[in-house]
């Protein structure tokens, strides 16, 4: 059970800061900072830079993703932006445009 949920139909314009999990089913524009996991579900739209723990994307993200853990781009995901993480998976069917930066 995620602690913070941006439901479908809800739009947040601004900055979201959280020490817990964040699930995006709706729309978020601005900035997203989370200490824990961020999940962008199918239908979710994030037009923001994401700084967080593990990131899982099945929706749309426009912006840079910076994670101190892993980033998973699932089937149906659409990501435009740079991704910085220790581990990255891009599933078959995910759309991605941007740079990948992994700690090598």
């Amino acid at each position, binding site marked *: *059970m*995620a*602690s*913070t*949920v*941006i*439901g*479908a*139909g*809800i*739009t*947040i*314009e*601004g*900055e*979201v*800061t*959280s*020490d*817990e*999990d*964040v*699930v995006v*089913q*709706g*729309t978020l524009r*601005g900035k997203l900072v989370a200490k824990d996991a961020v999940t962008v*579900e199918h239908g979710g739209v994030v037009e923001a830079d994401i700084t967080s723990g593990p990131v899982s994307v099945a929706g749309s993200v426009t912006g840079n993703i910076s994670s101190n853990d892993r980033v998973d781009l699932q089937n149906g995901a659409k990501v435009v932006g740079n991704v910085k993480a220790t581990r990255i998976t891009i599933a078959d069917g995910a759309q991605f445009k941007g740079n990948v930066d992994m700690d090598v």
Partner: protein
Amino acid sequence: MANGQATVIGSSSFVRGRITGTGDLEIAGRVEGDVACSGDVLVEAGGLVAASIAARRIVVRGAVKGDLTAEDAVILEAGARVVGDLRAPRIAIAQGGLVRGHVQTGSAGAARPRSATATASRAPAVSAKAAPVARVEAAPARKQQAPAPVARAASSGGNGETRERAKAATRVGPPPPVVPALKKGTKAVAHHKKR
């Protein structure tokens, strides 16, 4: 997710910006910025909202600094602290809920309570002159069939002060002040009871 519609701002989350859209919203964390949604908004006990909220139904158990406008109802439960105006068709403030601001129930008409009370306080001063006389006239007629002028004279003759004031009223142009008019009405009632 299990709850497909509900939006939750968790207890350790902070949103600075505008929240809009459809569906329900539950705030247990901090929100700075306007909130406008077509569903229900619930501010939990630990929730802290520095924003005006517009929704269909607003339930507050936490702290809100801003105006609350609801299409259906505003409900302040125990522990609610609100600094701002409340406006909704139905407003409930439970014991233990704190409010500082203007509260208006009813549909979203223009807020004119101040001018309404001003006219209301003026209106009795004008009508109070006629009303006690009518009451005094009506009461004896029902009780002992006494002629109206006698009853009126008896009522005014009961107190010299009122007779003097009545004489002053007939002699001098300006109407009697507001406060004596109110007193006269109460006296008339007391006198009527004494009988």
